[in-house]
């Protein structure tokens, strides 16, 4: 069947007042555009005869073009003849004719101003709804916590330990490294600026305050949001997708108690510890860089750190940790429960949960900053 690969050709001739189109070779999508053009031109000029004798292969696109031309010619009251039709082509033409797409008339109407306003309103209402839902999840978590206290036997201790490992222990290297590098950067940048005033020694205060108060816990929370919120969403979401959640419900297992409590509680326990590790390693990084770059010895760094940095700086940083943990955990679990039945929504929700968690963490941090500034600590 090598002739199926012959290039297609269209020969046009005038014959007793009718346009005669002789098709040669294998017809496929490659020649569809010229075929449609020739057919339209021929139909526009009057009666048409199509000779398919020399066609080695007629594909559905060519058959479609012929069917459409025939339909046009018939609606114009012209004659349209097809000759040399092979048995296979006849079946194909028949099948195409039956399937000819019926153009539909219902087009989406353009957006008007009121529609746009409605969309804005709906989006705002949806955001409010979203916040309410998150609040609902917080309530659910607290309720299940109390229930666990009243009935300690229902608490899933193994799951808690497992999630503590996943959320906390496994995050230690990345958190420590990141914080160490931030300390190095602060020391380096701070020293260049402070040297202009001969105030290099204040680099210790700079590092201590910025790491303990803000950066240590904030950056830890951001990393944990990226690591853990996505992991929560993906794990719960894929259970949702495969109807495991529904199965749990029908088996009488409390979904919130079984899935949310161990995860969020693990975060609550682990995030302050991670924050503390971040603080220490940030100070170590800063101290090391101060030693190398400014010649501030570790002993001097330690003395200045203890003398000049109040305990409040550390406490302010640590106070934020449980709030961040709750936000990350609740956003992650909530997004997981929103996953639909297809894999696409799993991906969407996972990335949405990370973005929401990081955004919420930063907003909360800003609110805390304003609050502490107002309170004066």
């Amino acid at each position, binding site marked *: 069947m090598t002739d199926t690969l012959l290039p297609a050709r269209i020969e046009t001739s005038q014959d007793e007042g009718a346009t005669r189109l002789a098709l040669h070779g294998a017809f496929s999508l*490659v020649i*569809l555009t010229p075929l449609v053009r020739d057919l339209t031109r021929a139909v526009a000029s009057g009666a048409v005869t199509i000779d398919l004798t020399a066609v080695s292969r007629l594909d*559905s696109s060519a058959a*479609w073009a012929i069917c459409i031309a025939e339909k046009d010619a018939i609606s114009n009251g012209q004659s349209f003849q097809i000759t040399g039709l092979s048995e296979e082509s006849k079946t194909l033409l028949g099948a195409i004719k039956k*399937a*000819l797409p019926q153009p539909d008339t219902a087009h989406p109407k353009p957006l008007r101003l009121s529609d746009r306003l409605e969309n804005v309103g709906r989006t705002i209402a949806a955001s409010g709804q979203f916040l309410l839902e998150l609040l609902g999840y917080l309530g659910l978590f607290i309720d299940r916590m109390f229930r666990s206290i009243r009935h300690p036997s229902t608490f899933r201790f193994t799951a808690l330990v497992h999630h503590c490992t996943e959320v906390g222990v496994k995050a230690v290297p990345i958190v420590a490294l990141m914080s160490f590098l931030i300390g190095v950067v602060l020391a380096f940048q701070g020293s260049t600026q402070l040297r202009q005033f001969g105030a290099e020694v204040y680099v210790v205060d700079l590092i201590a305050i910025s790491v303990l108060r803000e950066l240590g816990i904030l950056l830890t929370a951001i990393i944990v949001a990226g690591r853990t919120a996505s992991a929560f969403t993906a794990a719960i979401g894929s259970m949702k997708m495969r109807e495991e959640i529904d199965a749990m419900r029908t088996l009488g297992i409390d979904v919130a108690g079984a899935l949310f409590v161990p995860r969020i509680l693990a975060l609550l326990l682990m995030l302050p510890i991670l924050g503390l590790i971040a603080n220490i390693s940030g100070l170590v990084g800063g101290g090391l860089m101060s030693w190398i770059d400014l010649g501030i010895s570790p002993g001097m760094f330690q003395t200045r750190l203890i003398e000049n940095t109040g305990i409040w700086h550390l406490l302010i940083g640590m106070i934020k940790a449980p709030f961040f943990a709750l936000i990350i955990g609740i956003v992650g679990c909530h997004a997981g429960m929103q996953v639909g039945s297809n894999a696409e*929504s799993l991906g969407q929700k996972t990335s949405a949960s990370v973005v929401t968690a990081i955004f919420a963490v930063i907003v909360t941090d800003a609110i805390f900053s304003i609050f502490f500034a107002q309170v004066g600590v």
Partner: protein
Amino acid sequence: MTETEKEIVIRIRGLHNQFGHHVVHQDLDLDVYRGEVLGVVGGSGTGKSVLLRSICGLQTPKAGEIDVLGTNVLTASDDERSRLERRWGVMFQDGALFSSLNTRENIEVPMRDIVGLDPILRAQMADLKIALTGLPYLAGDKFPSELSGGMRKRAGLARALALDPEILFLDEPTAGLDPIGAAEFDILIRQLSKSMGLTVFLVTHDLDTLHATCDRIAVLAEKKVLVTGTMKQMLDVEHPWVFEYFHGPRARAAMDAIPAKKAD
């Protein structure tokens, strides 16, 4: 049967597939003739899908030869391969539609490579394929996630047919469909293979599909194609698995349901 006179479009010789120590195929031979609908059956884990993937070049076998339309799939150059890929279409189990494109755009994907094809004509061709596979006209604007399982399969079939292939590969075409939807799909495959002159290679579990659509059946067992032949010939095979498969309660039900109108 004048099988020697028929043109062989897929020729497999000595195929050997292995995952780790697990041998899936050993010395597997199979011929597929032009214009026929071949159904490949076999128990779970006998490598039906692996066979299909090997022919389509998605899986490189350890040894053996696979010729499709006169081209050796395993040694073909990139050019030869892409020319060959335009002459076959593959429908995956759940359609494998691109989730970011709507149905019409999905079907247009293979047509985008064709130089000189007008975009409007391309969309019309996609609509034609949508109609040919029995999808409602409005399905073109829908995204895969908005389609039901059966519609997704039809859309996957429409995409496989986008370039009017000579060979159509179907992986479990009726799996997961309700009996009515599956029966309609069987009829559709039969009709399309007739009207478009397709050679169909289908992997299935479904006895009804075998009855309703297949000209010939190949049974995979013991790491090779144990036997090929028509449904009638299958009934006389004495191999225990084949006997159980074609004489089990489900097989009898399927045979009773469809009167012997296969002689078309």
